[in-house]
């Protein structure tokens, strides 16, 4: 995987999501895309409607989980899926925006709803080249 991108990693019962970015905001955005990809292919989702979220936590790791859980909450209550994310970070305060559309079961063929982001395999780290990685396991 290059400096920017997302992937899933192995967890027997659930699924691990990982994002990389040139900065922490981008890593968080990519991890959110990995979250979407647990449910369906992000390319199938049209970025029609924007939803704003904000959260804060005492450290980067808890903030990642909060960010993902904020998206999970919006997906669950708005019955939406998101394919584009933007994150702004200031200290431990996050403001983010997610673009997506209402779930269309026949078109999106969503596999599974996500219950929550967990602290399992939770990691937010900066590499020597300055790029960032952020990951955790989500419960499905």
């Amino acid at each position, binding site marked *: 995987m290059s400096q920017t991108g997302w992937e*899933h990693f*192995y967890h027997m*019962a659930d*699924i691990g999501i990982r994002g990389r970015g040139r900065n922490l905001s981008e890593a968080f955005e990519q991890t959110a895309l990995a979250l979407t990809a647990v449910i369906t292919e992000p390319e199938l989702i049209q970025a029609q409607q924007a939803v704003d979220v904000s959260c804060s936590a005492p450290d980067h790791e808890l903030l990642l989980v909060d960010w993902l859980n904020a998206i999970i909450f919006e997906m*669950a209550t708005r019955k939406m899926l998101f394919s584009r994310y933007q994150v702004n970070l200031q200290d431990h305060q996050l403001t983010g925006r997610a673009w997506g559309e209402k779930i269309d079961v026949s078109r999106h063929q969503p596999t599974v*709803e996500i219950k929550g982001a967990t602290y399992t395999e939770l990691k937010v780290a900066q590499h020597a080249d300055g790029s960032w990685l952020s990951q955790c*396991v989500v419960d499905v």
Partner: protein
Amino acid sequence: MDLNLLNHVAEYTWRIEPHGDMRVPAILYADEPLMRDMDEKVYEQSCNVAMLPGIVQAAYAMPDAHWGYGFPIGGVAAFDPEQGGVISAGGVGFDISCGVRTLLTGLRKPDVENSKHALADGLFRDVPAGVGSTGHIHLNHAGMNAMLKGGAQWAVEQGFGLPEDLQRIEEHGCMSGADSGKVSDRAKKRQRDEMGTLGSGNHYLEVQYVAAVYDAKIANAYGLQEGDVVVSIHCGSRGLGHQIGTEFLKSMAITAGQHDIRLPDRELACAPINSEVGQAYLGAMRAGINCALANRQIITHLTRQVFAQVIPEAKLQLLYDVSHNTCKQEIHEIDGVKRELFVHRKGATRAFGPDHPDVPEPLRRVGQPVIIGGSMGTASYILAGTQQSEQQAYSSACHGAGRAMSRHQAKRQWRGRALIDELAERGILILSPSLRGVAEEAPGAYKDVSAVVEAADKAGLARKVVRLHPMVCIKG
């Protein structure tokens, strides 16, 4: 798992002696092949649980144990509040009070065979399932709080199901000590449209028949005979439970330091039972239990309506409803002394033996039904609690098969359409809104539930009573 790390103390019992910061041993129940295949993470997580303050006797793992978050799935651990014992959101899981209920139908397999397609279509139409589905009931603020307090009792008062159902549900359908005031507005908002929905993943509603009877006396007491048709419903507390788990995991992680709890891993986030956070979680988690009980009660009502239309002579009576993601306050005898403990069962089923006062009267003499759900297209089992189990793992048994391969692997290996066709040829109708979801739940992606049940029976955790085979499966 590397078996050299364990003491093989009996044929189905393996022990990890306390080392490092472990306060008690870890005890795992399984046969040798299951143990060999068991994830190394179960070893690590069982040891971690054994390090938590106030743990009593041992950290236990059931034969279907696998890698969870903090606690292993298939983990059982009891804590004593008088000894600084803790309560853990991870030890209960995100899907609070996820469980299974089985309904007798009074029908025999041939009675259903001809109407199978109509039944499947009706159930798929009327029981909301899958990602983004909404229920028929939309709760306002007062209704939500009443539901969280009353559980299945509330549901029956609202016209969902029958008063006699309540005797066949743990806690008589209403968990006491629930505090809706400790459930956040966000959790309630997440639940607003989700009452009476199955959810997704491994949740299902199945029409099954009794394919084999292992213990005729107990089967008879449960009202089960070979060829009888039953309905099983597997689901939990939906968005509300997930949100409670999410929020308390965070508050427990943040406050652990204030309570001088040194966590081997953040994911073990917990709080002393006798602390503000601990008590708040207890109140919210119990409300989550009521949400799950109400949810399964509403789905039962919807199921009865469909049967009434398709096969009017059916009479759906609840056999039992048992949860496998809970923390319950229970009295257990330890070294001859009765103690009040908080027993976490994460992916483990309570299995009270004969004569236990909490088992309803007609079932009490044979022990509580322990319902073990299989995966899509495979067998399920009904077991009975044993007196021996009380001594082994606080009257607990396994809960299901557990995955043998990740969702990602399963999706690459199977196609939903082909699986549905293949199962249809074997007489099993699968209905699901998502073909991709079906592929991830392929029967081959799960461990053999029969091996897990056999080990639970042989280890004395619960006694095998009947095996159920699916006829119709509504999959989320």
